[in-house]
């Protein structure tokens, strides 16, 4: 593999045969070619590498729910409380490496108390599992490259005569910090566990989690859904004990060949209904069936609630709650199949700008709305159309008006000529002129016009006659 580094083409990765020839990563491609003209070189593709790393991270979720990515080539697994499930740390590491090897990856793994120490041990160490509390000892003889420092600092330290991490332990801090920056001590303290460091999980960590492994893989999607419902029953029982309901769910399907497929579903209210969870995922599957090919089958299915909310037991049958509940469930199902941006609720906002006064928000996340501020008796109400164009629609040509500032006598819109018989207005609405960078006159004069052919329009003139050539738009249709 070769990639560009600055202006030179350099080797970024090589296989065992090339390594045996004495080549190494970071070497200029021209040098390598000079040594071995027959070298087979491929263009490096960092984006594809990142995608692959992400998919391996998904696969690693089978060991722990908390997996972080350390680009460009590392994965961080927090196995606290997980190791005993696979028979201890050594067994877990062995299983992980064996399976990765089976999938065709060459990997190194180390287990340590801190992220920094595991990073150093996995890349440069000989001992795979550091004794708990023994980070100082474990890191003493490792090269400085094991600390996550930039290349300049490492070269500088080497030139100062330091080779191993242990050499830094007894040094005075201030002079080195002055030369190499505070990052040096931060990384050392993190590796030694004197400073905390958290793994940033790549997938949202679950609050509740149930799973089932299969000796014989599942290949039919109906079976997967049945398993999902069974898992959902266990999950809801767990949540019920703590009085919680799920707001965000994920169904993870671990495929035999190492791919992890993740289906997510959100709910607008906390949910604890196994049959409904199954239907949500069935709806999700109908849209993305192509992305979820079972291949040789799934050997592990996991259901996770990564977002939960308090759900107190409610008394059924009180007036109104049943309807609201049914509507929330409908919202969830529509959202699961069509997407959150397609299922909307109307919300009124306290502004006079027509487009912003009533906006459509995703129903799955929008809170139940307060009563509208405008009462039906409000005289302004009659002045607003039933249908509004999100973008005002320009008229075909500037219409003829009785007076320069008046309503048009007739206008042409979408190639149809409308003869105005009655009008109300103008109602002047000034936009947020301070937000417009182009310094336009953003004043709109709105007219409500009724036409001879029965159409009723909300049209406006943008701009003032004496300042600019005004433009006319249709903004809404009245009933």
């Amino acid at each position, binding site marked *: 593999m070769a990639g560009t580094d600055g202006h030179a083409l350099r080797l970024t990765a090589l296989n065992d045969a090339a390594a045996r020839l004495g080549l190494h990563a970071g070497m200029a491609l021209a040098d390598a070619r000079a040594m071995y003209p027959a070298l087979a070189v491929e263009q490096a593709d960092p984006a594809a590498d990142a995608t692959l790393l992400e998919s391996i991270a998904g696969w690693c979720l089978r060991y722990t729910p908390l997996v972080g990515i350390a680009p460009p080539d590392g994965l961080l697994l927090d196995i606290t409380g997980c190791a005993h499930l696979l028979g201890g740390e050594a067994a877990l590491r062995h299983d992980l490496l064996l399976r990765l090897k089976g999938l065709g990856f060459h990997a190194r793994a180390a287990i340590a108390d801190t992220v920094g120490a595991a990073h150093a041990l996995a890349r440069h160490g000989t001992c795979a599992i550091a004794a708990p509390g023994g980070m100082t000892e474990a890191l003493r003889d490792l090269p400085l490259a094991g600390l996550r420092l930039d290349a300049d600092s490492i070269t500088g330290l080497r030139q100062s005569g330091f080779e191993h991490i242990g050499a830094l332990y007894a040094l005075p801090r201030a002079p080195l910090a002055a030369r190499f920056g505070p990052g040096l001590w931060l990384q050392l303290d993190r590796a030694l566990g004197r400073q905390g460091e958290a793994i940033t999980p790549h997938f949202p960590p679950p609050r509740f989690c149930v799973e089932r492994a299969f000796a014989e893989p599942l290949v039919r999607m109906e079976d997967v859904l049945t398993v999902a419902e069974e898992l959902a029953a266990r999950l809801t029982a767990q949540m019920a004990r703590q009085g919680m309901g799920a707001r965000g769910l994920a169904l993870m399907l671990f495929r035999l060949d190492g791919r992890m497929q993740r289906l997510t579903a959100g709910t607008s209210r906390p949910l604890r209904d196994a049959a409904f969870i199954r239907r949500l995922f069935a709806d999700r599957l109908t849209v993305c069936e192509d992305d979820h090919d079972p291949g040789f089958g799934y050997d592990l299915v996991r259901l996770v609630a990564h977002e939960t909310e308090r759900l107190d037991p409610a008394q059924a049958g009180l007036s109104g709650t049943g309807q609201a509940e049914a509507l929330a469930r409908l919202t969830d199902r529509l959202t699961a199949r069509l997407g959150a941006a397609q299922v909307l609720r109307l919300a009124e906002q306290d502004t006079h700008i027509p487009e912003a*006064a009533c906006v459509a928000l995703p129903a799955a996340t929008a809170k139940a709305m307060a009563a509208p501020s405008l009462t039906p008796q409000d005289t302004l109400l009659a002045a607003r159309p039933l249908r509004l164009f999100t973008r005002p629609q320009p008229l075909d040509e500037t219409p003829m008006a009785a007076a320069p500032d008046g309503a048009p006598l007739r206008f042409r819109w979408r190639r149809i000529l409308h003869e105005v018989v009655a009008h109300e207005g103008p109602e002047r609405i000034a936009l947020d002129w301070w937000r417009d960078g182009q310094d336009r006159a953003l004043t709109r004069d709105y007219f409500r016009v009724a036409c001879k052919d029965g159409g009723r329009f909300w049209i406006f003139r943008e701009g003032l006659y004496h300042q600019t050539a005004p433009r006319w738009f249709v903004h809404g249709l009245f009933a």
Partner: protein
Amino acid sequence: MEPVLSRAFRSVPPLEDGPPITLGVRALDAALGGGLCARRVHEIVPGGVFQLGSAAGFALGLASCADRRGAVIWIQQGQAAAEGGVPYGSGASLFGFSPARFLLVKAATAKDALWAAEEGLRCAGTAAVILELTGAGEAADLTATRRLNLVAQEHGALPLLLRQQGMRGTSAAATRWLVRGAPGRADGFGGIGNTAFALTLEKNRHGPCGDWRLEWDHEQHRFRAALSVAVAAPAAHRPHRAA
């Protein structure tokens, strides 16, 4: 194929009409056989795309007559919103609907839109489902409308099918309305007046077709006749009965 289908159709029990929804205009209710069938699809077609506002207003009026508390699921297919705009909350208040009662659904395809309509009809909190299809809405054909009828039978919400243009084929709808805006009664201040509809009842399973003129009462939230006498054309020829 043909005999199989006809046998299958014969085996389906006839649809039951629920209690009719009275529109509050006596002559029109009489022509509809007591009122609008609550459990059947009703088609609404605007006189032109620019009259989608009137058509939507008429649909909301019907929904308001059907149920004053439940939610309205308004499904717009594809480019329907670009063609005729999105429902606007403040304007809908005139029909007695607070914006919170709307659930807007944008469906990319007619298939998704029909699915969403069925799910909406099955939901207990729904007063009406307004299914707005682009163009003539050919996807809502005889089979699709029949399906909607069957779902509505079980759950009782009012299905309203809003086509942006008239369709040539048949459908299982109980009524089809051609809706145009009409000049409203003048309010004495020179304004554009009340919301008024010039309706043509093009298809009616329970009575004659004809022309009607209705007005919407924004205070009481109900229809009233704009003329004292309704003009009902005698229905000599009704081709849909043959279908």
